[in-house]
């Protein structure tokens, strides 16, 4: 890392321009809990590290209108967790984000970093996809918006081009009678990487599901939005027969790898189980149980 330069950018323009000029040899530094480990171990050797935490917009949680939040890309887990309104509206996003690492890691790690790290197993990502969250990206040609489910292109790969920076995460206005949940399977209860992660986000009106989004992590090269599984929930009362069907569609969508954390068979089966359990948790949350 001896050739690395450090720049604490004050504005989005400064960060984007510096990244653009570096022609692929620069990395944005938010919490650093992935990047600094990767640099220390020699996996990444950036010539320029651009610290983005001093850019106000990236470090701000903003309620832009009632129940509608925009969370800066470098806002830490500890910081977001102290926002009582956000945690009440998006308990699934918070429980996914808070699963990542220890309190020390939470003091620094960000939703934006978890997303940009590009891991198929990043815990917060399925929860963000289920939430219907949008990535706001700044680049040399201005800002653009991309749904989180389209953000990843493969393990470690995202849509971000040279000079483009994730600025913030825009959550949809939270409707009443809605809630979300995230569950993951790990061999240990804490401090581990997901074997399967499942995020769900539903709206119920008089016990009928009127909106649903299901997302799975760690079962394919990228986190997935399971569109067909989400769609068949709508208009139903989410009884156990429906949930069996939804679980089967989730199982069909899985395309995992065998590795030391879990086999293909195991990951696939667990995806269906987690789907059912997380839907039940989201229903309980809507009903205030």
């Amino acid at each position, binding site marked *: 890392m001896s050739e690395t330069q450090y720049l604490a950018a004050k504005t989005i323009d400064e960060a984007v321009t510096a990244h653009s000029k570096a022609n692929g040899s620069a990395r944005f530094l938010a919490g650093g809990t992935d990047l600094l480990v990767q640099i220390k171990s020699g996996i990444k050797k950036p010539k320029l590290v651009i*610290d983005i935490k001093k850019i106000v917009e990236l470090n701000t949680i903003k309620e832009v209108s009632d129940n509608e939040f925009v969370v800066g890309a470098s806002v830490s887990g500890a910081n977001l967790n102290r926002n009582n309104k956000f945690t009440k509206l998006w308990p699934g996003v918070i429980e996914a984000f808070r699963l990542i690492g220890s309190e020390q890691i939470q003091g*620094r790690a960000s939703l934006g970093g978890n997303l940009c790290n590009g891991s198929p197993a990043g815990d917060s990502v399925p929860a963000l996809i289920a939430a219907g969250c949008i990535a706001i990206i700044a680049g040399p040609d201005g800002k653009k918006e991309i749904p989180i489910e389209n953000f990843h292109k493969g393990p470690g790969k995202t849509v971000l081009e040279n000079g483009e920076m994730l600025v913030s995460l825009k959550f949809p206005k939270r409707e009443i009678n809605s809630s979300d949940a995230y569950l993951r399977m790990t061999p240990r209860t*804490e401090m581990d990487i997901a074997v399967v992660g499942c995020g769900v986000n539903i709206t119920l009106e008089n016990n009928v599901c009127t909106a649903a989004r299901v997302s799975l992590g760690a079962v394919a090269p990228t986190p997935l939005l399971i569109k067909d599984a989400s769609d068949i929930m709508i208009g139903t009362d989410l009884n156990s027969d429906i949930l069996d069907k939804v679980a089967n569609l989730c199982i069909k969508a899985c395309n995992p790898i065998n590795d030391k954390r879990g086999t293909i068979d195991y990951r696939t089966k667990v995806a269906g189980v987690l789907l059912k359990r997380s839907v039940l948790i989201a229903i309980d949350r809507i009903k205030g149980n």
Partner: protein
Amino acid sequence: MSKIQVSTNINNESVEYLCEPHDTMLNVLRNQLDLTGSKESCGSGDCGSCSIILDGELVCSCLMLAAEAEGSKLETIEGMSEGGKLHALQQKFLEKAALQCGICTPGFLMASKALLDHNPTPTETEVRFWLAGNLCRCTGYDKIVKAVLEVADDMKESA
């Protein structure tokens, strides 16, 4: 390559130092500022023995660049006792034998302080979850958890 000049505040004292862009905060604390209480064990944010408090947040100083401290406020283990008087947590760790070899102890104390700063009345489960990022390979965790809970109880009584 030019060094970076950093102005920061460590344990309520203004501090200035020059660092390389790649220097970690831990490296500068230990090797430049002679604040060797924070330990490096894993160097990858898994063990918590380098824990410090940065602008009120508990962080691993091994996963922070020294250049990032510009304009910040840092607390390290060296600032925990006041005027030669041990902090209640330090005193209780001694009384309860909540340490053995001592390498993890500064990290546990900083993490415990951050917990009680944020949540003065934690449950045992909350203490165990909060301290899950600090690894101890000799004493084990029970004595540490009990010491933290007793300090919280003492604080409640004296409040």
